[in-house]
């Protein structure tokens, strides 16, 4: 293989990398738009609790704050993991992404705890339009978190096995993009659902 060919090879791969990251970005935008429907539905229907408890009666601000702080921290550790991955330090990468994974798990458990609590008290998504839109909005975010966790587990497994190859770093950066993106969506859920219930 001559030198010239190698350099062209690199640019071929880098261009592919750039394309995939851009495509993933566009996908994230479509996902945001899906959330926008849920936000719109929540905004329109959240008043229709039909005499049932409203957000003010149900939500616990400290719990929501805890969730937010956990997710923020996980976003931060995810960023640190990405820096390590770009430097090619496998151990640090696994460590920081491992922390991110655990924080995500903690977040998901709190979310589930909240859901179970509501359902236990008899407030299910069948109760009224407010509960329906609440469960679907927060639940969809939860499903995204779950799939991100599964994805993270698989990617980390392959990182551990195959090392930080270029394509692994690309997969990690897509994962981190997704994770930050879920964090941003959560900020709005925190504000619109949990805080605005008490305004």
């Amino acid at each position: 293989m001559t030198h010239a060919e190698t350099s062209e090879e690199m640019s071929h791969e880098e261009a592919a990398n750039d394309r995939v990251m851009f495509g993933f970005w566009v996908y994230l935008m479509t996902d945001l738009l899906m959330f926008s429907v849920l936000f719109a539905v929540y905004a329109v229907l959240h008043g229709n609790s039909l005499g049932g408890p409203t957000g003010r009666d149900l939500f616990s601000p400290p719990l929501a704050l805890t969730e937010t702080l956990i997710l923020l921290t996980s976003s931060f550790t995810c960023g640190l993991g990405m820096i390590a991955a770009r430097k090619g330090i496998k151990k640090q990468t696994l460590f920081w992404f491992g922390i991110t994974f655990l924080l995500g798990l903690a977040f998901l458990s709190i979310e589930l705890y909240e859901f179970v609590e509501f359902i236990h008290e008899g407030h299910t998504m069948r109760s009224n339009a407010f509960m329906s839109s609440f469960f679907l909005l927060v639940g969809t975010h939860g499903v995204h978190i779950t799939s991100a966790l599964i994805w993270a587990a698989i990617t980390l497994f392959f990182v551990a096995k195959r090392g930080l190859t270029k394509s692994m770093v690309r997969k990690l950066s897509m994962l981190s993009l997704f994770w930050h993106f879920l964090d941003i969506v959560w900020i709005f859920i925190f504000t619109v659902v949990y805080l605005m219930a008490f305004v």
Partner: protein
Amino acid sequence: MSTESHVTKSNTKSEHGTTGSYVIGFILSLVFTIIPYYLVVNKVIAGNALLAVILSIAILQMAIQLLFFLHLGRGPKPLYNVVFFFATAGVIVLTISASLFIMSHLYQNMSPEEITTRLAQKEGISQLGGEKTGACKELGDNHIITIKDGQVSPIHLEASLCDTLTFINEDNKKRVMKFGSHTAQVSYGGEYEVVLDDGRPETITLNQSGDFAFHDDQDINTDGHFSVAP
């Protein structure tokens, strides 16, 4: 060939973040989470002001995360992803705000509850499903407002809830009396106007308390007001 060797090109400082930028982003995010929480829980301000503040802080927080965590705008040019982000943001704002705009107007105009309430008022049903409709069980005194040569007399009328009010038009033209001022029309008890045709008197029941104005929107000089004591 070791797998780690060909990732050594860490010239990526400009494009990706450094530890420093993540720390700054993290601290700012924490601050902008705590502030709205504090404002809401301790009720420092209230109402629409609070709403505006926490929503703008959420948007600020998003901007911070986009810059410090996602490094938006630092990729290879041209920045198609930035274009897509702003287009998406625009569509999201449109989706949510237009939905609220449309649905609130729809609710105002078409709300089934309001229609039943209005019907109940006309029929004199004072309670519907445990809620007061504003209709009166018994009617009180009758008051008369006469319009002659475009002049309203009396120009101000005092009445109490469940009295009736009769408009008499003595001019030889059709008048449409609307509630509210010339610049801002309002509804009175679900109605927006009283039509006075050919001197025929028209009577309404005063089923809403407060101060109200009325006017003929064809005639700038013809207006008056009445107050209904509860």
